């Protein structure tokens, strides 16, 4: 555990990519193979099952810290991270433990069948033998909130450097579901892929935004200048659903989301068509709610994503279908190296053969001869319930991760509204102890009605200024939330707007974020609820 805690600390202590890779390599070279796999699992989002609920962990931490509960809460708001808060508040330990990461995780997993009393006894004893930094990472393991400031790409790069294997190969090998207890480091490192894992998905290929930021729109001419001859490109709508990879191998089906969550059971409507696919087929596409052959806005799909049990009602109200746009494996062969056009032909063939064309749909190609023409077509995105247009180079292979060059997304301009900040809350992580999470309101007559929360889009310098304003213009405090004198106006961008019965304003925004701080605008000139509702398009 000491090595793992040190790894965390060392990664925190540098902002340089090369340094981080070096630190990761040193870690891999220093620890036993089982620790390597556990670290890999943790750093790629495979967190251990939570064995003690966080309310209990918190309660026992307060006990161990010997401070009142309210002071613990206040501290948490200052630190912005529960695991760190607990680590900081407990008394320093005077003994030390040499248990490895693997041993600690085994102990955590062993809590499964223990009583609450036994869990508490174990936890207090464990805390007492860890130093501050160890306790911090230990708490992270325990509460399952494991986020590191290191991308999976860097971890892969370190492993690639050590093993001499290609990064893309390693990325693929660690996709999907595997357990650090059974997947061995030697297996991962073998020259030829030895693991037989029929559920394993391919790494997703992700598009790059053609306009670097949502504020800087590009004209068709500028797009053309970057991309060249229109005839080299395939255009499709950019659908707003759940990106998914669907696998049929050895008579079994698997549906993976982009976040590498196995979501097969969440989409029973898709099972018949997947089961009917030939073995050794992998399809990339977008899952959307459909009604009467038309895609529905994302919020319809959203209502069923979070549900544990899919009731009959939900299945009726928001039935899903797939809009397929790529084929990665065909007849058991990895065909990612084939060109976009070749893969498209195979996909069309598969789709033409399906008995479920309502559910297994194909992403239509948009015909266009000039970039101007495509620019015009893009204006219809909102009517198509699309987010814009996707551009794929016809000669390109299906690559790993977000790569510049062959897949571009050309999103529509966000909708926007000028709104007044009325509440603020402190942020987390890098933004701990700073007011960075804001609630915005628009005018409804002479009242301000909150309609959206947003916490991104400002520069660090702007955040400091807004934080300064909030601390001096607080009207009331409710726990961590402050009511702020309504004065600052921000332009809020969003992708879509829908009716909502859950919100006071009666509307819900999709992806709200701050586009800019309108220091030029007095609060009286912010927009009205009426103007927002007009965007509902009814």
């Amino acid at each position, binding site marked *: 555990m000491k090595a793992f805690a040190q790894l965390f600390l060392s990664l*925190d*202590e*540098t*902002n340089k990519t090369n340094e981080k890779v070096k630190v990761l390599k040193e870690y891999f070279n220093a620890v036993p193979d089982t620790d390597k796999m556990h670290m890999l699992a943790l750093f790629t989002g495979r967190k251990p099952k939570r064995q003690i609920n966080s309310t209990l962990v918190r309660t026992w931490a307060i006990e161990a*810290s010997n*401070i*009142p509960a*309210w*002071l613990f809460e*206040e*501290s948490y708001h*200052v*630190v*912005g*991270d529960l695991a*760190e*808060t607990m680590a*900081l*508040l407990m008394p320093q330990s005077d003994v030390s433990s040499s248990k490895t990461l693997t041993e600690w995780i085994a102990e955590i997993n062993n809590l499964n069948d223990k009583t609450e009393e036994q869990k508490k006894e174990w936890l207090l004893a464990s805390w007492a033998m860890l130093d501050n930094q160890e306790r911090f990472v230990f708490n992270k393991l325990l509460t399952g909130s494991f986020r590191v*400031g290191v991308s999976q790409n860097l971890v892969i790069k370190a492993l690639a450097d050590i093993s001499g294997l290609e990064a893309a190969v390693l990325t693929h090998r660690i996709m999907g579901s595997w357990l650090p207890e059974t997947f061995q480091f030697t297996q991962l490192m073998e020259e030829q892929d030895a693991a037989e894992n029929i559920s394993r998905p391919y790494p997703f290929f992700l598009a790059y935004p053609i306009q670097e930021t949502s504020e800087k729109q590009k004209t068709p001419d500028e797009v053309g200048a970057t991309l060249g001859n229109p005839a080299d490109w395939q255009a499709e709508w950019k659908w707003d659903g759940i990106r998914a990879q669907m696998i049929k191998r050895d008579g079994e089906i698997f549906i993976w989301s982009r976040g590498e969550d196995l979501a097969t059971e969440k989409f029973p409507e898709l099972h018949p068509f997947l089961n009917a696919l030939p073995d050794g087929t992998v399809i990339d596409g977008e899952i959307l709610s459909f009604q009467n052959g038309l895609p529905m806005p994302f919020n319809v799909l959203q209502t069923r994503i979070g549900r544990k049990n899919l009731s009959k009602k939900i299945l009726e109200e928001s039935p899903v279908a797939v809009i397929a746009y790529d084929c990665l494996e065909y007849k058991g062969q990895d065909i990612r190296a084939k060109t976009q056009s070749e893969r498209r032909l195979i996909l069309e063939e598969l789709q033409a053969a399906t008995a479920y064309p309502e559910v297994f749909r194909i992403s239509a190609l948009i015909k266009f001869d000039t970039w101007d023409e495509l620019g015009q077509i893009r204006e219809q995105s909102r009517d198509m319930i699309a987010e814009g247009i996707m551009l794929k180079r016809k000669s390109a292979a299906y690559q790993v991760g977000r790569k510049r060059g062959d897949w571009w997304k050309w999103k529509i301009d966000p909708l926007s509204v000028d709104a007044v900040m009325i509440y603020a809350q402190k942020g*987390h*992580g*890098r*933004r*701990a*102890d*700073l007011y960075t999470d804001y609630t915005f309101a628009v005018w409804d007559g002479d009242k301000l009605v909150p309609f959206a929360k947003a916490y991104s889009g400002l520069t*660090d310098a702007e955040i*400091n*200024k807004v*934080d*300064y304003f909030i*601390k*001096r213009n*607080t009207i009331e405090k409710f726990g961590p939330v402050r009511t702020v004198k309504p004065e600052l106006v921000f332009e809020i961008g969003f992708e879509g707007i829908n009716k909502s019965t859950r919100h006071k304003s009666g509307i819900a925004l999709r992806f709200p974020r701050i586009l800019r701080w309108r220091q030029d605008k007095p609060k009286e000139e912010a927009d009205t609820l009426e103007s927002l509702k007009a965007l509902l398009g009814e």
Partner: protein
Amino acid sequence: MAKKPLLEFTDKGIYCAQGKFYIDPWKPVDDAVITHAHADHAYVGHKHYLAHYLSKEVLLYRLGEIQLQTVEYGETIMKNGVAISLYPAGHVIGSAQIRVEYKGEVWVVSGDYKVEDDGISTPFEPVQCHHFISECTFGMPVYTWKPQAQIFDDINKWWRTNLHNGLATVLVGYSLGKAQRILQNLDLSNGKVYTHGVIENTNEALRRNGVVLNPTERITQDSVKEEVRKGIIIAPPSSVGTPWMRKFGPYSFGYCSGWMAIRGAKRRRAADRGFILSDHADWDGLISAIDATRCESVYLTHGYTATFTRYLNEIGFDAHEVHTLYGSEEEEASPQPSPEEREPENQGEDINEHAHKILSFGEDLGEAGGTIS
């Protein structure tokens, strides 16, 4: 009618009506008693100043020609029947707590303080009083400091590692206080100490005041880069990321501040290394200091005042949050730059003009201002 308290909080500063003087006023007054020379406590524009004699040269350097009277710790000055005496606050060289007594009633104003002996500032001395006015910059239990020996051990090790890896070493800390504390605790067998002009100006002022500091070399246009890279550079926060600093690259840059205790704040600063080293008292230090005064009541001025006040009341103190003086809690986290931070490249020139601009409380602001970056 209740008796008027000996010290009161006004919109100009802490005021003693009986003695007709202010303590650390931030608006021009006739008679000012100054706890220490940081810009948020020592403002320009007062007719008369009283401070500890070790603050003398720094005050003159920062404020220009002022009418300044200096005293030793423990010496008593009478003003209109009120006895004023200064006691060491341990915050920076020359920092003082101000003890005020009239007809047997004793008040102490802490200014900024720390309880750990840093080896260069006269160590903090608890002073018994009826009423204690205390700072609480780090008045949250998540702030607990390790002994400085341990921190300097880490700093010296890091310096050696950088030398080994061919990296220059830049250590960032405030020009008055942190810079000298660092200087006196470096392992000089590693190499020479080079200073940014702003820091060297303060060092020179202190040396004029008779303070003996380890040898330093001011970085000028004539400095030889390769030589400087073999030593260690002490620089103010304002120099971070400037061309001045970049020309010594590749380097590793360390930041010394109490705020480094929190991972988020550390990441915001984007330092290569964050060293948890503060010239303010930590949580336990604040409580033990307040307890040692045996005061009847304590007034918390700046820092996490709301939280700290509530906690002190729960454990049996009569604690009051002072709103009127410095505004609400966390005022320290002001984005107003400290003098150094205003003018990144003002090495060697006169700093007086900066002091004319009104700053909100906290040069140490810099330290206090965990949010500045």
